[in-house]
C-alpha cells in the first residue's frame, strides 16, 4: 500500500470503535428489539413476521404488535420477577458496599509494598471459573455442608441452618461473586486520595471519624457510584446464582428470560423481557449522567 492510499484510508481509524459498536451492539439490539414486537411461530426462526425485503416493509411493520409488552404488564409473574430482581440486586449492592468499602479502605491504607499483593488477592477468584465457584457454595451451604459442619463442630449451632435454596443463599452467592467489582473502583478512588488532606483536616480540629465523614467519604463518592453501578447492573440480570443457590420462590428476571427462551421457545417474549430490562437499567444511568453533566457545567 502506498503512502498516499494509506493517508486516504486514515479517516477510517477513528471509525473503528463505532464500527465495532454498530456490528456487535447496535445491530444485535435492533434484532432483539424487532423480535420483541413479533409473535412466536412454529417456524425457523421461531417467530413471525419475517422481513421479506424493503418492498414489503409496510406489511412487515403492520404485522408487528405490542402483545408481548402487554403480557409483561398483565402477567404478575413478570413484573414480580422484575421487582424481585431489583430488590435482590439492590440488597446485593448495599451488602457489597458495606463489606467492600472497609475492605478497599484497609487496602488503600496498607503499606505501599502490600497493596499489589492485596489487589491480587481480590482478583484471584477470577482465575477460577465463575460456575465452579458458585457450585462450591452449594457444597458450603447445603444441609450438613461445610458451613453447618463447622458451626455445629464448634458448638455454635445445634441443627443445620437450612440456608440452601433460600434468598439468603442467593445473596451470599451474589455478594461473593460481585464483591471485586465494588472493591476495585473504590480502591482506585481511595488510593489516590491525598493523605495531606486528612492531615489538614486533623490540623484544623477534625477527629479521625469527622475527617473521614467530611473529607474521605465525599471524595470517594465517584468510586462508590462506579462500584454500585458495576454491581447493580449485572446483578439485576443475574441468572446462574439464583438458579443454583435459590429456591422455587426466588424467580429473578434473568431466570424468567432463560425459561422463555430455552424452555418455552418463545423468542419474542424473551426479547421483550430483555428490552424492558435494558430500559429499566439504562434510563436511571442516563438521568444520573445528565445530572452530573449539569452540575459540572454549572460549577
Amino acid at each position, binding site marked *: 500500500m502506498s503512502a498516499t492510499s494509506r493517508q486516504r484510508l486514515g479517516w477510517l481509524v477513528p471509525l473503528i470503535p463505532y464500527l465495532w459498536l454498530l456490528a456487535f451492539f447496535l445491530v444485535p439490539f435492533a434484532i432483539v428489539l424487532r423480535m420483541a414486537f413479533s409473535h412466536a411461530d412454529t417456524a425457523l426462526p421461531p417467530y413471525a413476521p419475517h422481513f421479506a425485503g424493503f418492498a414489503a416493509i409496510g406489511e412487515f411493520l403492520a404485522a408487528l404488535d405490542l402483545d408481548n409488552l402487554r403480557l409483561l404488564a398483565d402477567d404478575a409473574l413478570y413484573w414480580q420477577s422484575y421487582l424481585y430482581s431489583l430488590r435482590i440486586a439492590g440488597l446485593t449492592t448495599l451488602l457489597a458496599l458495606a463489606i467492600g468499602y472497609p475492605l478497599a479502605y484497609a487496602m488503600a491504607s496498607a503499606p505501599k509494598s502490600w497493596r499489589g499483593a492485596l489487589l491480587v488477592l481480590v482478583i484471584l477468584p477470577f482465575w477460577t471459573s465463575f460456575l465452579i465457584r458458585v457450585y462450591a457454595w452449594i457444597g458450603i451451604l447445603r444441609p450438613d455442608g461445610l458451613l453447618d459442619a463447622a458451626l455445629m463442630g464448634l458448638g455454635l449451632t445445634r441443627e443445620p441452618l437450612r440456608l440452601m435454596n433460600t434468598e439468603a443463599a442467593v445473596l451470599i452467592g451474589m455478594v461473593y461473586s460481585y464483591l471485586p467489582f465494588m472493591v476495585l473502583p473504590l480502591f482506585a478512588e481511595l488510593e489516590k486520595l*491525598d493523605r495531606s488532606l486528612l*492531615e*489538614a*483536616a*486533623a*490540623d*484544623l480540629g*477534625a477527629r479521625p471519624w469527622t475527617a473521614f465523614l467530611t*473529607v474521605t467519604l465525599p471524595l470517594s463518592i465517584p468510586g462508590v457510584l462506579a462500584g454500585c453501578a458495576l454491581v447493580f447492573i449485572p446483578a439485576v440480570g443475574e441468572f446462574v446464582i439464583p438458579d443454583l443457590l435459590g429456591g422455587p420462590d426466588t424467580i429473578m428476571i434473568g431466570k424468567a428470560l432463560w425459561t422463555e427462551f430455552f424452555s418455552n421457545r418463545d423468542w419474542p417474549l424473551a426479547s421483550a423481557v430483555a428490552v424492558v430490562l435494558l430500559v429499566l437499567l439504562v434510563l436511571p444511568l442516563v438521568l444520573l449522567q445528565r445530572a452530573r453533566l449539569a452540575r459540572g457545567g454549572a*460549577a
Partner: protein
Amino acid sequence: MGQGTFAKRKASPGSVRRAFQPWNDPQARPLVEFRNVTKRFGPVTAVDGLSLSLYPREFFALLGPSGCGKTTLMRMLAGFERPDSGAILLDGVDITAVPPHLRPVNMMFQSYALFPHLSVADNIGYGLRREGLARPEIARRVAEMLALVKLEGLGARRPDQLSGGQRQRVALARSLAKRPKLLLLDEPMAALDRKLREATQFELMDLQSTLGTAFMVVTHDQDEAMTMADRMAVMDHGRLVQIGPPDVIYEAPVSRYVAEFVGDINVLEGRVSAVEGDLVRVESAVAGPLELDEDAPGFALGDTLLVGLRPEKIALSHDEPAQGLNKVRGEIWDIGYLGDVTMIQVMVGGEGGTLLKVALANRTRRIERPFAWDDAVWLSWDVEAGLALAP
C-alpha cells in the same frame, strides 16, 4: 551548637532590624520549647537531640537542605509525628502526646491541601465548624479572612478554579482562621513564581506583624528565610548548626557548612603565623600573607585555618592597591553579567590555584565594563571582611 571556640563572634549586628529580641531576654517566656527531641525513621535519625525555643510574635525560619530534618521538626510540632524521646512544650504545657486535632497550632501545607470538594469559603470555615461556632459567626470570620488575604468575592469558587497564588492565599486564610498561637508554614512559596514570591514574602511579614501570631517557616530557600525571619536556624543532619538573626548568620557563620549554605563564600586555606590582640595573621599558600580582624581565642600559632570571604566584600582593581596587607594578584577567568551585579571569577596563585568569586555592583548603566577576560588584576579586602572558619 557548633564548635565552641568559634561560636563567639565579634560581629553582632542583629540590632539593625528591630528592637524585638526576646531570645536575648532571660525573662521572656518561650511559646514553644523543644527539649532534647529525637526522632528516628528506621535507621535514619531525622532529628537528633534537638533543643529549641520559639517566642510569641516571633517570625522564625528553619533553613536546611532537603533531608536535614526540618520538615520532621515541623510535623512533630503539628502532631503528625511523635518524638522517640524528649518533650515538646507549648505555652509551658507538654503537648508531646496530644493528637493534632487538639493542638492550638495550625499548619499551611506545602501542597496547600485544600479540600477539592469544598468551596473557598467552606475550606476557610472548616476549622471553625469543627469548633462548633454558630453559622453567622463562621460566615463573619470567613469574610474577615477573605478580606485579610484580599480574596473578597471568591468565596463561592472551588479550589480548582483558582490560580496558584490565589490557592496559596486560601491555604493561608484557612490556617489562620482559628487564630492559632503558632502558624507553621511548610515551604509556603515553593509553588509560586519568582515575582509573586517576593511580593508574597512582604505581605506575609505584614500579616504576621499585624496579627501577632508566631510564624515558623520551613524552607530550603535562604533568600526567603533571610527576608522574612526575625531569627533563623540552619539545620544539618537533624541538628541545629546555628541559630540567630539572618545578618548574624550571614556575617558570622559558625562553620564552613553554614557559611556555604547561606550565601556564596570563597574559602582560602592558611596557617596562623601571628596573633596580635584582635589581629590574626595568616600565611596562605596561594594568596600570601593575610590579616583578619578576628577575636578568636581558639587559634594558636601554626594552626590551619580557613579564611572565608564573601564575594561582595572583595574589591577589584588593575593597579596594585596602595595600602593594606590583604591584596592578591590574579587573572580573570570568567565574567558573568547578572544585571544587578557582575560575578567575576579570578584565578589566584597561577594555574591550578584557587578560583575566587568577586561580586561587583553595577552602579552605572555603562555597558562597557572595566574588566575583561584574561586581565591581570588585584584583589583586595578590608581586615574586617575575612572570616576565620574551622577547617
